[in-house]
């Protein structure tokens, strides 16, 4: 509550005070020092059937309007003083498909980021852009590199044509290698591939094939996500109708374990439940999320965090474009100490580094009146889902696969 007064913020979901949005309030008075920025570009060439990110095929061609509006938003953040005293060490442009922007517009957007945000010197900055393999050619790669981007995350998902069809992904398998080639040639050498396992129809063999194919391309970073049937996606509808069958839970678990073993053997470290990197190549931006640090957010549906205040930019392009408010939010929320602690546990335990035990004890003493959290932690320690290594408490490999059984008791 003290925090609330300090920022004189409305409670979650209440309307803003006067003409200033809560974010403006925060920006004006916050002691939070954001360390990163997330920017959301909502356009895609085609909507994949599993996807529930805010993205769509833009038939009205609003790319230019989008970039212009984003420039406003970025400039406004500077005006508000949201970034005073901070130095951003990460930028992450995600989507959607940012590389779908026409090269001049892409360049303009990158320039605006550089102009408006207080970025760390290039050597200390991780600047990532997400890309669909099919959209990356030599020209786009050159624009990215020239704009200051030094990391690209490619949605490969699978190297098995049948799996790609099951997901309704519309890229060609060869385009992944081609895209990596263009990027490396342009000088972008910190590269990630996203993979999905547990795709309907896939087998342990086909998954192993995916892993091998990904490793053969020598990325610096790999993400492997278990396929999730998000509500209201075509994939979930098809599953509910029985048109496709989700893979067995046991198989999915084996696929995950397989990934752990194979990637470890290939010299990758797993630093988060679904993320692996060669030493020193962990994604700094994602680490901001897991370590509960502050970051700014721009573009429709982007989520940010400023020292305990979580907020989300309005999630519809039209509304976002038309909004009088330069930085229009649809949701914001500040949890009390008890809730914030739960969130921090939920995030921190996803990391291989786990959480600090002294910090944990301190919080438990203040935010665990009924002893529920302590009991949940103790039982997870007892049954081998958690382990203590020195002063850190972390999930074991078994615990990783069962993370939600513990995290649901901790939030």
């Amino acid at each position, binding site marked *: 509550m003290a925090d609330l007064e300090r920022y004189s913020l409305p409670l979650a979901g209440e309307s803003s005070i006067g003409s200033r949005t809560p974010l403006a309030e925060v920006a004006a008075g916050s002691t939070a020092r954001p360390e990163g920025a997330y920017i959301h570009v909502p356009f895609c060439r085609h909507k994949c059937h599993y996807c529930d*990110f805010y993205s769509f095929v833009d038939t009205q061609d609003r790319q230019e309007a989008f970039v212009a509006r984003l420039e406003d938003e970025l400039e406004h953040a500077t005006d508000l003083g949201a970034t005073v005293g901070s130095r951003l060490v990460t930028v992450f442009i995600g989507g959607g498909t940012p590389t779908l922007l026409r090269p001049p517009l892409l360049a303009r957007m990158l320039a605006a980021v550089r102009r408006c945000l207080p970025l760390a010197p290039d050597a200390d900055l991780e600047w990532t852009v997400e890309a669909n393999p099919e959209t990356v050619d030599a020209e786009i790669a050159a624009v990215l590199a020239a704009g200051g981007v030094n990391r690209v995350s490619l949605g490969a998902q699978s190297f098995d044509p049948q799996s790609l069809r099951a997901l309704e992904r519309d890229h060609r398998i060869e385009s992944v290698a081609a895209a990596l080639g263009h990027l490396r040639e342009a000088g972008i050498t910190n590269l990630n591939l996203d993979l999905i396992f547990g795709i309907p129809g896939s087998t342990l063999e086909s998954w192993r094939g995916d892993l091998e194919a990904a490793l053969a391309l020598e990325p610096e970073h790999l993400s492997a996500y278990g396929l999730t049937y998000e509500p209201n996606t075509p994939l979930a509808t098809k599953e509910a109708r029985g048109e496709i069958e989700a893979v067995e839970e*046991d198989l999915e678990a084996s696929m995950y374990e397989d990934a752990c073993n194979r990637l470890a053997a290939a010299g990758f470290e797993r630093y988060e*439940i679904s993320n692996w990197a060669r030493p020193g190549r962990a994604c700094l931006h994602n680490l901001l*999320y897991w370590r509960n640090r502050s970051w700014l957010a721009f573009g429709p549906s982007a989520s940010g965090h400023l020292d305990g205040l979580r907020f989300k930019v309005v999630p519809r392009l039209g509304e976002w474009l038309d909004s009088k408010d330069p930085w229009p939010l649809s949701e914001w929320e500040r949890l009390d100490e008890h809730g914030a602690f*739960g969130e921090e546990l939920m995030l921190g335990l996803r990391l291989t580094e786990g959480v600090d035990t002294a910090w944990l004890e301190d919080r438990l003493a203040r935010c665990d009146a009924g002893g529920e959290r302590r009991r949940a932690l103790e039982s997870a320690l007892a049954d081998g889902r958690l382990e203590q290594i020195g002063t850190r408490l972390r999930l074991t490999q078994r615990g990783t696969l069962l993370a*939600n059984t513990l995290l*649901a008791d901790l939030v």
Partner: protein
Amino acid sequence: MKIRNFSIIAHIDHGKSTLADRLLQATKAVSDREAREQLLDSMDLERERGITIKASAVTVNHEVDGERFQLNFIDTPGHVDFNYEVSRALSACEGAILVVDSTQGVQAQTVANAYLAIANDVELIPVVNKIDLPAADPDKVAMEIEQVLGLPAEDCIYVSAKTGRGIPELLEAICTRLPDPRPARTEHLRALIFDSIYDDYRGVIVYFRVFDGSIKTGDRIRMMGTGRTYPANELGRYTPRQQKVNQLGLAEVGYMVAGIKNLGDVRVGDTITLESNPAREPLPGYEEPRQMVFCDFYPSTGDGEGGRRADFESLREAVEKLHLNDASFTYQTQHSEALGFGFRCGFLGLLHMDIVQERLEREGGVEVVQTAPTVSYLVDLHEGATVEIHNPSELPDPSTILAIREPIVKLEIICPTDSIGDLMSLCDARRGIFRGQKFVSDGRQMLEYELPLAEIIYDFYDKLKSMTRGYGTMDYEIVEYRAADLAKVSILVNGNPVEALSLIAHRSNAELRSRAILARLKKQIDRHQFEIPLQAAIGTRVIARETIKAVRKNVTAKCYGGDVSRKRKLLEKQKEGKKRMKMVGSVNIPQEAFLAVLEQSE
């Protein structure tokens, strides 16, 4: 003026209510302008489902060859669950019109209702209806009536209740072929109560037929069975409008409003006499219909303790209110460890159960969760007593039980000949005893079986319908309670018995049913961190088992572009869900699991 009292009886949907409409119109009781379809079906549910649930009695006048007749007739429901309504109606009449659809022919309830009429010594006029339809084959149907029921084919009257064709001939037959009411046997008033309904404004309305003597407005009457007395404040008839009269005389049919507050205070089948000048003997009454099928209702929206209690109260109100209108279902408070507080209700049959459930939701505005139906059992104990139970959990200690008896029905099925084999296998699998087979017409046969009621309420009718491609019909009648090799099957989850899941089953198919139940249960219970054995047991003997494997993966893959709040909310939902589950030992069982198991289809 001569009086003709008759009922209209038929298999469901063969056109009784429509025929009643035509009789009202042909006798000018309602004008052509007023006529609407199935005028006597007044309940919302009746009009919507197009079926008759309550019998209704009306009075109209007709003239044949200059002679005036008062016709009192009762439209009856066709469905087997409401057979008791048909019997009651018949006992107030000397005649009955047996309607048979000329495109469907004789069906199971045609036979059952005709037998009821014959047993009540009622004169039958067979009517072949719907002759306007292209598929009509009235001559063939008339032959079926002769073949199966022994009523001469040439006695059949062919009509269309839709176009009105044949209606004048039918009216004439009613007047000339049906007998006069029997003469009075005593001067004292004796009137038979054959129905009663509850009206929100006037209280109970009693329908009766005067057999002896007469009754006037203002008379103080006495119910001979209950001994209660009331003032006859209002007498009248339905024409079909309510028409007050001062007096109802010998053989007449009408209604009475007498300041009776509660349906339960009136016993259908009771005899009305005068307080001042009572008859010595009552008329022969009826057997009270017996509740044969039972299920539980629970309020379905009930998050948390507070919510559940509030919902239970609205359910209680709805149940009590509906009971004012339909005294033929029973209810008592029930507490289930899984589903909280609710009611255990008894019904005359499955359709009756459906209708009560629908009326609770519609008229009472409560959403209910309904458990699978069970039957009542009689348990004979060693020490000589017999107890009736409606619930496996009420079963006494097995060592004290001498025998468990279950209700047995006489089942009649009319079906296409080519489905006989399948149906016989079905009946055999359901512990049926073959009693006979009859020729109905080319391509159709009638089967007679004796079968435990418990086997019929368990997915029997649907199977019959699919085996006969929709053409088969059935009717049943309880004949007795019979001892059988029944046992309580307990369901154990991780070694702990869960009372709310137990069932009573015959030993010969206990294993099969248990396996089906465990398979459904397995789908409903989430995997836990340990393996969960599911077992079905009779006493200590395990008859079926399943295993829910330990969970291997339960993790959110991705953090949606830093949308931490969303991820937290998902976890919180998971946590909430867990709280709402029922803990048995260390296993969380969701409410849906209890319902899935209690669902009836295999």
